[in-house]
């Protein structure tokens, strides 16, 4: 009778306190030899055969390793394979590395490679789109494995870079929440949605990394990430936005590093829609854009204007092509094409997917309006854009960003001009791209792709924009140089002092 209501309240408080104190012992601050990485988008599955999302796949590459690695200049480096040779147009043989153990102690051998490839190709795992040119793999000796292709695939070594090798006894469920790889790190513990902790695997065959323990914190909100970084809760902040980065770069306690990525941002156009069938109109679209201003004022320098579809690291990048800005000429061309007062159309763009995509789209619309091109901007969430992409709903123009992990210019051109989202119809161009894809000789391939890049530039087959940069924030605790593939190679991070 006395304090019934008050004790009810207290009861609730007590219950909460009890629950709170019973929470697991997850550290929010790292100790000396560990670092905290914040802002990496999280996924729910650690199976490398399932994960295609770049960021998460990059995390898994610290745990699992491929047969061969793709180097920065297009060269191929040994991974779990020490040597390789092509036996015939559709068969390659790889020599597997000795004295390698999986984290659970099992010895690595060619059967693991066979199992990995078969599991993807025959088991219908998401990675099978990458291995579409592979038929099967067979262990052919105590330390050799043969990979058989469906058809000659000049890029097979680059493709294998993306296939992490798993242990032969793995099942569909055994790799979801645990790991078992050959890489320098293994899973310590994971609280989904909150933190994932990796630790150095003592039986790793390669050089010992400087950082022994890495805590990945999932921080979906950009402001919260910046706040966490400023409060020294995070040593490596991933995916910072330009304005935050420029503010933080003034601080002496933090390091901001921006690196060119392999992702280009551009606008795809539909030349079956008037007036985009007129090459002069398309050229006007390109000439009226001041890309330097876009990069300088909106991205705050975190981009590079570019006149190729693909970036400089790709095979076939054409150095001689330079972005053009000439609004006067643009107006003349429009007049010539019979549109002295410009014209109207809809520009579709994603919002929240790429760095400052919304502001960039708005700025582009603003720049176009100065020459009379009145684009109505329709912004949409990325999922809606991708659905419209396949259903051809994004005509006549849409903004998109593309990066192609194999760093091959012909693959890139395929994505832009010969895939479900290609609205620019040009059968000869497509035929030439298909031809280039098949070429096995590197210099011939390179020269052909360079010519194709020049061709799409001259034809203004798309509106070229810029190459995106990725911005990382580093605390004074670590030293690291980001690479253009936007992955974080933990072994390359050094502890300062």
């Amino acid at each position: 009778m006395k304090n019934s209501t008050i004790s009810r309240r207290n009861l609730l408080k007590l219950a909460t306190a009890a629950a709170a104190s019973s929470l697991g012992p997850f550290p929010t601050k790292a100790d000396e030899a560990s670092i905290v990485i914040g802002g990496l988008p999280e996924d729910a599955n650690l199976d490398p055969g399932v994960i295609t999302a770049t960021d998460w796949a990059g995390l898994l590459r610290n745990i699992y390793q491929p047969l061969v690695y793709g180097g920065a200049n297009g060269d191929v480096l040994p991974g779990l394979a020490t040597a390789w040779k092509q036996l015939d147009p559709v068969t390659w043989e790889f020599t597997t590395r000795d004295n390698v153990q999986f984290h659970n102690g099992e010895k690595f051998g060619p059967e693991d490679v066979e199992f990995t490839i078969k599991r993807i190709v025959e088991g219908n795992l998401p990675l099978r789109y990458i291995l579409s040119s592979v038929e099967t793999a067979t262990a052919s000796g105590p330390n050799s494995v043969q990979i058989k292709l469906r058809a000659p695939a000049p890029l097979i070594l680059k493709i294998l870079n993306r296939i992490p090798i798993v242990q032969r006894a793995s099942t569909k469920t055994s790799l979801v929440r645990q790991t078992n790889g050959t890489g320098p790190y293994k899973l310590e513990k994971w609280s989904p949605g909150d933190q994932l902790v990796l630790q150095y695997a003592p039986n790793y065959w390669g050089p010992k990394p400087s950082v022994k323990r890495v805590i990945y914190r999932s921080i979906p909100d950009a402001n919260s990430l910046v706040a966490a970084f400023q409060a020294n809760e995070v040593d490596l902040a991933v995916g910072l936005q330009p304005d935050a980065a420029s503010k933080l770069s003034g601080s002496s306690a933090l390091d901001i590093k921006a690196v060119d990525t392999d992702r280009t941002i551009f606008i795809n156009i539909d030349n079956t829609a008037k007036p985009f069938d007129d090459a002069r109109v398309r050229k006007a679209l390109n000439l009226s854009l001041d890309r330097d201003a876009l990069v300088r004022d909106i991205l705050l320098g975190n981009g590079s204007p570019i006149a190729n579809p693909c970036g400089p690291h790709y095979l076939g990048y054409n150095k001689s092509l330079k972005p053009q800005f000439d609004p006067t000429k643009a107006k003349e061309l429009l007049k010539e094409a019979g549109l002295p007062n410009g014209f109207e159309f809809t520009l579709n763009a994603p919002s929240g997917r790429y760095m400052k995509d919304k502001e960039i789209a708005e700025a582009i619309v603003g720049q176009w309006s100065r020459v009379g091109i009145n684009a109505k901007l329709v912004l949409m969430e990325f999922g809606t854009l991708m659905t419209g992409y396949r259903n051809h709903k994004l005509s006549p123009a849409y903004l998109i960003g593309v990066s192609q992990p194999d760093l091959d210019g012909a693959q890139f051109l395929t994505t832009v001009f010969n895939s479900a989202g290609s609205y620019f119809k040009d059968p000869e161009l497509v035929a030439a791209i298909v031809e280039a894809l098949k070429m096995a000789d590197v210099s011939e391939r390179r020269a052909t792709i360079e010519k194709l890049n020049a061709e799409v530039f001259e034809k203004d087959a798309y509106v070229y924009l810029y190459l995106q940069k990725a911005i990382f924030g580093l605390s004074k605790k670590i030293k690291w140089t980001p690479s253009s593939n936007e992955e974080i190679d933990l072994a390359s991070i050094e502890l300062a002092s």
Partner: protein
Amino acid sequence: MKSWTFASRFQLPSLTPVLATLGLCIVAIVAVLAPALAPFNPNLQDISQRLLPPLAPGHLLGTDQLGRDILSRLIYGSRISLTVGFVSVALGSSIGTLLGLCAGYFGGLVDDIIRWLMNVFLAFPFILLVITVVAGFGSSAVQLVVILGLVSWTDYAKVLRAEVLSVRERDFVTAARSTGATNRVLMFRHILPNAISPLIVLGSFDAARLIIVAAALDFLGLGVPANIPSWGSMLSDGRAYMQVAWWLATIPGIAIMLIVICLNVLGDWLRDRTDPRSRAVE
């Protein structure tokens, strides 16, 4: 019995509701006269003038990340916010009133079905329902208003139904029925007018809630992706600049807050006046 309550209430200076109504009227006028009042075109970009703080020459409230004048965007943005608030309330209240009336009046199976529908909508976590629909059907200003109206009808239906139930057996209704009035006449001409006051109260609170929900949608990137500025999208865009240019997010934030406060105060006052003992769930 309650002599002291009424007397003391009317001795309270009722300045606050007056201020609130005044505030809402001002916003309404600003929204209507936006083209005349705004110093700049809200979409006019001038990158050389980006991120100017308030009280910069020519830009009373500063400029945003693309150099657009914030005052002008605020003025034009009032249109979206008011439209969202009032049109979605109009839609939601119309649907809710109709369904609530039918449920209370006809009873039986009709009532069961309508109550079932209400419970289904109520059980859906509100914001998730809106997000699911918006993510699915995309968003334009019109669609957003329709969606918000569609998911908020339940409160009106509940209130209406309760009112109808309590009024249904009253004398004047029986009298009207005995003169041979049709159902429709009874519902709309006799019962509904008596149920209006809690509706208005509810509408006021609902408008406040929906304006916040619309802003929250913008935060999540699912709101109006406008060529026309909205306070919610200004707030959402300005988030990224909170530490660099606080005014981008703070100014629309204050605007939203003020209009919501005005609506809530008005709703409170209306409720106090029309039904001092009602404890309608907001």
